[in-house]
């Protein structure tokens, strides 16, 4: 995905390929400028004006259906376009957003209307996708949505306005609203970053529970490695627009194969004192991404070949890849 800037075109998302199964959670980790939020925006059709996007994003019931769609797209490009999210127009998006894919954000007030009662907002979300439901059914479904998000006293809370809820409850309300119309894929962009650690734990447990119960595919975006270890089956690490490591979460975090991932781990504070080492330098601006491996200037293991070309994602282990010549 490319964006025009005064300094020229930049690529916040560069050759990114991912897959997530129903009921699986993929953690997307990166710092500011890694492209993780832009990727989420691209998947939701919320691109900034002027953005150019290429590639495919396919949503299907299961791997078989996705593979079939992919094959059809390859045989008749453009004809089966309806299933490629990146090729949808705004009218088509309105059915997909909320109905098939939903997103929750760091700040619930980006989705919650401050002057509308919570219950009504959820009903509105349901009606947008199922206009033929009777009023009583809509109300019932809204109450179910609140219950699913484990909001205590849902009938009371449904009548309240967002400002009357605590941060944690607002986040639950946003999750309830996102899932109200039954999407199969949920993107959560730093949903717990602004929350206290005890509330964060509750929300992470809730997302985990919902993922299992509803067989949701969950894309969880965060900068916090501890959180990703707790919430994700698999993790993809992004740097300067590219995925530089991907694999089973516990494995990647226990035995990282890319120096940046290792660097992030070493720079993440834990409850053990004295083991903090920062990564020298800083994340490159997208207008000035170094040639070859973008991490090379900061890498303690760099060699001449690192500047020559962008390394491929090499296989480090079973379903564990890393974009580094050392693999």
């Amino acid at each position, binding site marked *: 995905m490319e964006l025009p800037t005064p300094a020229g075109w930049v690529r916040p998302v560069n050759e990114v390929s991912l897959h997530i199964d129903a009921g699986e959670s993929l953690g997307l980790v990166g*710092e500011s400028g890694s492209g993780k939020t832009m990727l989420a925006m691209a998947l939701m059709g919320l691109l900034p004006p002027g953005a150019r996007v290429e590639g495919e994003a396919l949503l299907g019931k299961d791997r078989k259906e996705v593979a079939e769609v992919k094959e059809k797209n390859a045989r008749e490009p453009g004809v089966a376009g309806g299933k490629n999210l990146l090729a949808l127009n705004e009218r088509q998006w309105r059915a997909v957003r909320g109905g098939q894919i939903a997103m929750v954000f760091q700040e619930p007030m980006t989705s919650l209307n401050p002057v509308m009662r919570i219950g009504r907002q959820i009903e509105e979300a349901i009606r947008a996708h199922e206009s033929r439901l009777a009023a009583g059914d809509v109300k019932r479904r809204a109450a179910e949505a609140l219950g699913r998000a484990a909001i205590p006293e849902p009938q009371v809370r449904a009548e309240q306005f967002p400002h009357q809820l605590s941060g944690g409850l607002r986040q639950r309300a946003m999750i309830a609203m996102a899932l109200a119309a039954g999407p199969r894929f949920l993107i959560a962009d730093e949903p717990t970053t602004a929350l206290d*650690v005890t509330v964060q734990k509750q929300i992470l447990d809730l997302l985990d529970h919902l993922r299992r119960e509803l067989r949701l595919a969950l894309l969880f975006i965060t900068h916090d*490695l501890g959180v990703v*270890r707790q919430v994700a089956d698999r993790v993809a690490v992004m740097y300067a627009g590219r995925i530089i490591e991907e694999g089973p979460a516990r494995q990647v975090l226990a035995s990282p194969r890319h120096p940046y991932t290792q660097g992030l*781990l070493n720079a993440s504070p834990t*409850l053990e004192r004295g083991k*903090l080492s920062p990564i020298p330098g800083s*994340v490159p601006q997208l207008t000035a991404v170094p040639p070859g491996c973008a991490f090379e200037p900061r890498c303690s293991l760099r060699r001449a070949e690192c500047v020559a070309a962008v390394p491929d994602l090499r296989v480090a282990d079973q379903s564990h890849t890393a974009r580094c010549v050392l693999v």
Partner: protein
Amino acid sequence: MHTSEILLEARDLRKSYRRGGGVFSKEAEGPRFTAVDGVCLAVERGETFAVVGESGCGKTTLARMLVRLIEPDSGELGFRGKDLLALRGAELRAERRQMQMVFQDPFASLDPRMRVAEMVGEPLAIHHPELGKTEKQERTRAMLERVGLGADALKRYPHEFSGGQRQRIGIARALILRPKLVVADEPVSALDVSVGAQVLLLLQELQSEFGLTYIFISHSLPVVAQMATRIAVMRAGKFVEVGPAEQVLHLPAHAYTRELLAAVPSLPSR
């Protein structure tokens, strides 16, 4: 081994606010909300005393009271052996020079039209009017260099810098007067992981080099674990546990401390 000299001491500090009321209501209506509910502490020279707690526990109000940015409703506050609450005028200014604050977002309270040179040099202008222009410029440049920024930063404006660089500028501004005490309120909470690690390490280096005493406020136990000699756990305006860092982190006495520790998402040990 230095003798333990108490640099800052607080006894029974209290601060409360009235909530509610509004533009059209009479002054001081609404129920009272107690932000700090009788806090006592004694910070030793050279240590890093951390206050950790969740949002609304009162830690930020407490931090601001310790440097008299906010006036306590009641209690005692001693700094370098003097009664800080009783001081006025030149005497108060003299003590104020010795205590500085580093904020989560250093530029929230600063003029965006001020160049970095003025921002970092301002404390010198206020507290050391006797210094000549060249001397001030030199000290400013040296301080910026010490925090890892080049002389080219002097002429630029805050918005031109990244979060980590802005925090370094905030630190330079706080340290230019060579204070004895620095109160750091969530200094790395808004920063990326690797940038935050750089700032924490910088703070540690500066502490040894300048012989600083830190009061470190944070909501993050892992961050506090890296920096603290002693930790105070705060909830609803009170300290529920205070002790040496190792003890509070690994042998917590209070149930709330245990709850906080249990909620920290863990990483494999290195």
